């Protein structure tokens, strides 16, 4: 019974993720693309919950929906030409596009076949926050610090770019 419910929830979420991702890619209006991305992000957060990754699910919600998506919407709304497909969806023609799609499909199939997937017998709904915290400050301390340095560089870069324009005026 519980596996049935689990599967039903999984397929509902997967349906929403796939449909909204298709809208993001194919919509001719970039604001609509941005709004479809909300649904994609929410569905992915739901999939994380189903995998018992509670902390990552909430982080997905906070960073992507609350942060990145709002910034995207903020930028997109200020542009007046939201419905011009030539600006938002640049196309280089069918032939190069076809080659890229074929290569990408091959690569994805290769990865899907080659990766040793860990099959969980049953998802155990356990808190993961303290485990994440412990590994971030022990095994993965170096990558963690590297990412924080990268973010700092990004912050300083943004400030420098903003400053330069002010000086020129």
């Amino acid at each position, binding site marked *: 019974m519980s596996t049935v*419910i689990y599967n039903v929830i999984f397929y509902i979420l997967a349906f929403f993720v796939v449909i909204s991702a298709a809208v993001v890619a194919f919509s001719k209006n970039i604001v609509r693309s941005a709004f479809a991305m909300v649904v994609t992000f929410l569905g992915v957060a739901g999939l994380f919950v189903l995998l018992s990754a509670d902390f990552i699910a909430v*982080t997905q*919600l906070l960073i992507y929906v*609350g*942060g990145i998506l*709002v910034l995207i919407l903020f930028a997109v*709304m200020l542009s007046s030409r939201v419905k011009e497909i030539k600006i938002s969806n640049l196309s280089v023609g069918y032939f190069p596009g076809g080659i890229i799609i074929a290569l990408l499909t091959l690569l994805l199939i290769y990865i899907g076949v080659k990766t040793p997937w860990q099959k969980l017998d049953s998802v155990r709904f356990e808190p993961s*926050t303290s485990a994440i915290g412990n590994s971030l400050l022990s095994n993965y301390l170096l990558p963690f610090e590297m990412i924080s340095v990268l973010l700092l560089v990004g912050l300083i870069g943004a400030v420098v770019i903003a400053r330069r324009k002010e000086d020129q005026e």
Partner: protein
Amino acid sequence: MKAFADKLFLNIFHIQAADSPYLALWYVLMMFLVSFILLNFAALFAGIASYVERRIAARMQNRIGPNLVGPQGILQWLADGLKMFLKEDLVPQTADKFIFRLAPYFVFAGLFGAFVALPFGYGIVAADLNVGIYYILAITSLVVVGIISGGWSSNSKWALFGALRSAAQIISYEIPTGLSLMLVVMLAGSLSTQSIIESQGGWPWEWFVFHSPFTLAGFFIFFISSLAEGNRVPFDLPEAESELVSGFNTEYSGLRFLIYPMAEWANLWVVGAMVTLTYLGGWQIPGVRLETIPSSVLLFLISITIFFIKTLAVVFIVIQLRWTLPRVRVDQMTLICWTYLVPIALICLIGTMIWMLAFPWKSVFGTAIRILMSTVGGSVMIWCMLRARHNYVIDKDRFEKLKGIPAWYPPWKLP
């Protein structure tokens, strides 16, 4: 009490074995029941809060306020809701109709999603999530998506400006909110709302707000940025009625419009409950450790009462602030956030870390500081109340001399 309730439910529906095939279905059913109760609580609170806010506003502005529907006008919110329900649901012709219709759902889902992880008393929480407080912070960010989409899709200048202001404001103020919540998370060592309350105590010197000067500052930062995130005065720039008609909800009407103010009033409870559970000790009863004693119905009810009193006190302060402070300008709004709140919150974060290492919770000096701080804080509060009473007494005499009618009415005989 909780164990008793669980046993009762299991007995009523003859579910004995833990791995019964119907248990999953039972959980889904209970999920719907709990969401139904929470939704109704939030809606009722929003309605009554709207009435209370209007009465307080009237009193502070020397008016009478709604007093005709029901005794003392207490049913005014029902009449307003019914009126909204009967209005036509207009969609502007040039609007992006799909997104325009969709936007209120985001606001609704974002705000009422927060109620799932909010506690109401000892053991009463719909879902004691391991990441509770982080979840509340994240799910309320859906509200801003609703506000932006509503504002953009209306195809109106007022609505678009409101949405842009709201996006800038909520994105900025999420940083001081998160940083000031970090203080509490560090002190409690947990993200779960119930564990945060359990690591505090009933007496004021066991609350996190009086832990150190840094947490006291963190409390005020959290309070201010919660107001900004909920678009409350003095941060109601997204719907500044003197500049933007009504801001992001200008073009809405009928039931779709009703969602926006309702979410704002329901947000009052979220702000109050968040402040209470993080800094003001939540449902802890002074002198009683609920975790260590066998649960009894009486203590359980006392814990709910204490939580409600603290939350409603914060709600009343927020309401009175609305009718006291003028609205800040847009540049002042960003200035307050980035040049004052964020640096102070960072200093508080580091200061609390050092304080926790230097003076642990149970050490003599730490306890002495907490008792001293709560005494000083309580004295300042009592002094403010006495000043207010003093001013009132002077004004009352003048008013009665001038008008010849009494200045004070009992609450049940308001004009």
